[in-house]
């Protein structure tokens, strides 16, 4: 104990300098937007690089499962394509949901209140912030930060994010958010009593945001309860996606954000 105290006294100038340096850097990081975003970009690059190495090892041992998932995804896509050709709803040359970039998930969390996902595509691949991310089963999140080779996505399992969603059968608009409990369930609110809902109804994106077009699947109604005081349902939605095993994702194109912004500002 005495030797510890002696060491502290001997190196007190260094200790005081490091403490004050840490305090000043913390101040700089919190107060200055430029330094915050630069440090965030650096941390994404480092986190992405290290997560990529670990993911490379893990994915090698997961190839069999990955193949099965890809086969299932292909079947769903083929089925959708055939149905659309039969119904003649879209021309052959256009895709159902406009995306140009596919990516792999290198790091993902589901056990925190605010969960983020790291993918292996960045600004060098044409990725920019404020773009929606989906996979074959449904929506994943929105890109919030980009470095050269990696990007960070706010997962829909993040208590800060609210998604505009509709009940597909009745096109009733609601607001979808995560209550922080189960990574397989979210809550759809703002659906008034006047609407008829059934267990099993599909919930899709409402199309009233800059991030996701209308019609992207999210989940299905698994339970609901009535809130007598407010006059709205509180609907539990089971997600189609299993967030604990995300792999391939697709980054959507920007949905004419600049034109919409101009119209709103005028």
């Amino acid at each position: 104990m005495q030797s510890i105290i002696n060491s502290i006294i001997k190196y007190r100038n260094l200790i005081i300098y490091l403490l004050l340096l840490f305090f000043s850097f913390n101040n700089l990081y919190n107060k200055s937007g430029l330094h915050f975003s630069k440090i965030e970009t650096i941390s994404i690059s480092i986190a992405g690089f290290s997560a990529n190495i670990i993911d490379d090892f893990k994915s090698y041992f997961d190839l069999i499962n990955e193949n099965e998932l890809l086969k299932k995804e292909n079947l769903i896509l083929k089925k959708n394509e055939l149905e659309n050709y039969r119904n003649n709803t879209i021309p052959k040359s256009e895709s159902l949901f406009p995306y140009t970039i596919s990516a792999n998930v290198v790091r993902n969390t589901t056990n925190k209140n605010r969960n983020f996902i790291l993918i292996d595509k960045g600004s060098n691949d044409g990725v920019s912030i404020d773009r929606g991310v989906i996979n074959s089963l449904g929506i994943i999140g929105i890109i919030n930060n980009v470095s050269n080779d990696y990007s960070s996505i706010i997962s829909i399992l993040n208590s800060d994010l609210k998604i505009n969603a509709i009940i597909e059968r009745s096109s009733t608009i609601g607001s979808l958010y995560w209550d922080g409990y189960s990574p397989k369930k979210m809550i759809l609110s703002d659906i008034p009593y006047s609407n008829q809902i059934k267990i099993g109804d599909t919930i899709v994106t409402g199309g009233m945001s800059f991030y996701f077009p209308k019609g992207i699947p999210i989940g299905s109604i698994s339970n609901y309860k009535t809130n007598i005081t407010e006059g709205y349902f509180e609907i539990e939605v089971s997600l189609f996606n299993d967030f604990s095993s995300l792999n391939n994702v697709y980054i959507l194109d920007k949905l004419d954000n600049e034109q919409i912004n101009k119209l709103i500002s005028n």
Partner: protein
Amino acid sequence: MILQIFIFNNMNLFEIINPSFYLLIFILYRTTFNKTSLILLGFLAGIIIDLTSQSYGCHTIAAITVCYMRGLIENYCFGVKANLGKAMLSGVPLFNRITFFLIIILLHQLIYYSLIFFSFNFIDTIILYTLLNSIITFIVIWTITKIFYDIKR
């Protein structure tokens, strides 16, 4: 400090030059005084300048680093066994004193502008701002120390 806040922070010559006159405190700080107090003084001065100029910690980090490294800079400029006392004013060759002033000013300005721009893409701008501001700061500080030391003598 008052001169720095009210005059030198608002100087902005050619939109580049803002002399850091408050470095005078760290340069003229007597070496026989407590080094811990110097670091705390540097922190305090840096925080005050940051709050008045909204630089969020850049001045503080530069100031405390200069205060911490001052001992090493003194040993390099004046020698380990030199009778330091007031070496920054008299008693040592002129070249050593100029070196001492310049190293402290250059180190402070380099750290400050590196934090302000915080990007490798601006390395040429950082070097330009560091050199220009260091020269002007050196001229101001050297002139003031010369005038006041001569008056005192």
